[in-house]
Structure formats: structure tokens, C-alpha cells
């Protein structure tokens, strides 16, 4: 039953990704000023939205871990697995954002990179979560989970500060497409459809990987607990 469920969800995800690709590359009309390069938008923006979602999952799970680590160990362990999985999948999505951004920026802005509000925030976010993953590698034993959760709190506090800092500084990134002002929003229904399908397919893909990762991490925790119990019994 479980195997069937996994197979079906993988198939659905792959089908959605293919459909999303078709929508972005063939169904959506060519953009008037930027041309075909604008199609990167269908990957760049959904990935950015989802990266923030996964980092938020990681942050909330870290808070749950800190709150329950002494009172409710099973919940805390589950929360830790979610925090790790959220950070890992978030870093992947953030990497896609940071790769597709310059690819678009070079032909449209004429430069690969600029120190602007969103770019800097995204890069700092990426750096913070890579350092979070590094800390998890460097720190040993159960204290690692606590230290990682604390770092996640610091990271989450940092991001709004970086964002505000850069808003005061300078900005070159296009204004928000949705909710940016009177002129914002996608007017062409085909473009909107392509965008919507890509948000959906990337979200499904990301959540699938997230659930897989949590499952693997939970297994890992079980193995470690069994090892610790065996070591105690042997003494």
C-alpha cells in the first residue's frame, strides 16, 4: 500500500513537472520586451516562493524543537527531522533561484549580479542555511540538534534585518509581480496559467522530497537510538 502510494505520488509529480515545462516553454506567449529569456521567470519566482516556504518550515520546526526538547522527546525528534529536511530542500530551491537569477539578469540588465535588496537577502539566506547545515555536520551528538535550532532562530532574525537594510540602500530587482501596485499582476491568462502550473508542480516536487527526507531522517534517528540502547545494554 505504501509502495503504491509512493509510486503514484512520484508519477503525479513527474507528470506535473512535464506539464509545467510544456506550459512555460510552449503554451505561454513570448513576452513583448524581453523575449524568450522571460520564460526563466516561470522557474525563478516559484522556486523563490517555495524556498521561503521551506525555510519557514525549518524555522518553525526549530522553535518546536526548542520548546519540547526537555518535555516531549518524541515530538522534539520529529521536529528536528523537519527542521533539517526544510533547510536542505530550502537550500536546493534557493540555489535554483540564485542560478536562474543571473542567467536572466545578464541579457536583461547586462550584468550577472548586483548588490540589491532581494539579491542580497536571498544570498544571505542561502549562506545562513548552508552554515546551518555545516554546523549540523561539525557538531556531534545530541547537543547538535539544540545548537542547530538556536542557529536557525538567529538566521530567521537576520533575514528581515538584511531585507530592510537593503531596501534603504538600493534596489534594482523588478518590483513584486503580485501585490506590487496598480500595474502589477500578470495580465495574459496564458502566462498566468503557466506560472500557476509551475508553482504547483514545483511545490508538489519540493514537498515530496521534503517528506522523503523527513522519512529517511526518522529512520536514521531510529538506527542511532537502537545503537545507543545496544551500547547501554552491553555495558
Amino acid at each position, binding site marked *: 500500500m505504501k509502495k503504491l502510494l509512493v509510486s503514484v505520488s512520484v508519477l503525479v509529480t513527474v507528470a506535473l513537472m512535464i506539464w509545467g515545462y510544456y506550459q512555460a516553454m510552449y503554451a505561454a506567449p513570448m513576452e513583448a520586451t524581453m523575449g524568450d529569456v522571460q520564460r526563466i521567470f516561470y522557474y525563478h519566482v516559484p522556486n523563490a516562493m517555495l524556498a521561503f516556504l521551506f525555510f519557514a518550515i525549518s524555522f518553525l520546526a526549530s522553535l518546536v524543537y526548542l520548546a519540547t526538547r526537555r518535555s516531549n522527546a518524541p515530538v522534539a525528534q520529529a521536529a528536528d527531522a523537519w527542521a533539517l529536511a526544510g533547510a536542505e530542500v530550502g537550500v536546493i530551491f534557493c540555489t535554483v533561484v540564485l542560478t536562474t537569477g543571473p542567467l536572466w539578469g545578464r541579457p536583461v540588465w547586462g550584468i550577472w549580479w548586483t548588490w540589491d535588496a532581494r539579491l542580497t537577502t536571498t544570498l*544571505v539566506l542561502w549562506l545562513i542555511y548552508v*552554515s546551518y547545515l555545516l*554546523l549540523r555536520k*561539525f557538531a556531534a551528538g545530541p547537543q547538535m540538534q*539544540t545548537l542547530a535550532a*538556536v*542557529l536557525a532562530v*538567529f538566521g530567521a*532574525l537576520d533575514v528581515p534585518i538584511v531585507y530592510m537594510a537593503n531596501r534603504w540602500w538600493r534596489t534594482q530587482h523588478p518590483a513584486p509581480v503580485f501585490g506590487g501596485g496598480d500595474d502589477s499582476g500578470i495580465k495574459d491568462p496564458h502566462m498566468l496559467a503557466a506560472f500557476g502550473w509551475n508553482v504547483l508542480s514545483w511545490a508538489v516536487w519540493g514537498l515530496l522530497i521534503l517528506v522523503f527526507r523527513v522519512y529517511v531522517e526518522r529512520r536514521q534517528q531510529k538506527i542511532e537510538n537502537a545503537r545507543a540502547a545496544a551500547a547501554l545494554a552491553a555495558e
Partner: protein
Amino acid sequence: MSIHVTHRESWLALVWTHLQKDLRIEWRSWQAVTSMLFYALLVVVLFSIAFDPTLEVSRQIAGGVLCVATMFASVSLLNQAWARETRHQVIDALRMTPADGAALFFAKVLTNFFFVCIVQVVLGPVFFIFYNLHPLGDTWLLAIVIPLGTWALVANGTFFAAMSLRCKSRDLLLPLILFPIFLPALLAMVLSVKTILTGDGSDPHLLWIKMLAGYDIIFMTVSLLLFDTVLQAE
């Protein structure tokens, strides 16, 4: 679990005890301050040679060089600050005392802040000579900006050094986790120093200094609240 000392005087007394101890250790060896001072001096000299800046360029980049030199040099100091406590398991003894861990943290921050300030006071004139600086803005503002930025660096650095204390290759780990978090403070510090040196008036409302102060308050509060969690992590 730590028992929180409710009496206010006794919390300050605790801070004072830790502070005295740390200052006395440093007074007898001068290890941390001298190594940091020499390291910072080397960074300043290296940058000066590598870029050979003209007068106008100096003003533009001097703030960044000063901040980055302090940042790199502080890492060695911050690592030593906690490494001292691991000798003879002092840190384990501190964990077992019923005293509030935040007091220990606060004392460490004060000590480190004091040491970095000494280094900056010595380094400052050297820096002005090497870069031929003639500040065009309100120079007195430097007396606000530099301590605020240093505090941001030292408070976060002390916290993260305690975090990486029991990790593998902790000397390497500290900059890896400290620098990304410190980035907004570095940005604010560099830009306000640049505004002061060039006198370009790009920050009339002193937004960057306010942001730096806000950063200090936010992160100091969170550090004080979470320090016991880090100290007692097991």
C-alpha cells in the same frame, strides 16, 4: 537547569566576578590582545599593499578595510575566550553551578568588547597614517559607529564561539557560522563609516547607525535569552 538568581545585585556581582577573572587571566599573559593586534595590523598592511589606494579611493574603502580587519582578528580572540574555559574542565564546572549562564555570557562579551576596543584604539592612528585619511564628514560619529559595530561583532561572536566550543574543528566553524549572521551589521558599519569619511551626506537621517543599534539590541536580547540553552546543550 539553572536557578535564576532573582536578586539584581547578585546578577551583577556574578558578572563582575567573571569579568575580573577574565581580565586577570589576560593581564597575566597578554596573549589574546597582542596576537589580535598584530593580526589586525597585518590585514591593514596587506590591504594597503594589495590595493595601493589613492587618497579618494582610501576614503571609499577605508571603512570596509577597518571593519574586515577587526572581524578577522576578532575570530582568534573569540575562539581563545572559550578555549580557556575548557582547560581543567572549567566549562563543565560552570555548567554545574546554579548561577545564571547569561551572566557568564554577558561578562565574556564585556571582556571581549574591551579587548577589541584596545586593539582599535591602537590600530586607529596607524590606520589613518597608512591610508592618509582626512575625514570629510562628522568624525565624532565614528565614536558611536565603531563601538556599536564592534558590539554586534563581539556579542554574536562570543555566542557562536560558545556554540562551536564542543564541535569538531571549532576554530574553523566559528567564522563559518558567525559571518553570515554578522553581514547586516557589517553592511551598516561599512556604509556609515564610508559616509563619515567621504562626507557625501548620503545618510542624513543616520539610518545605518539606528539600524546598527537595533541589530545590537535584538541580537543581544536573543543571545542572553538563549545562552543557557547553548551552555546546557547535551
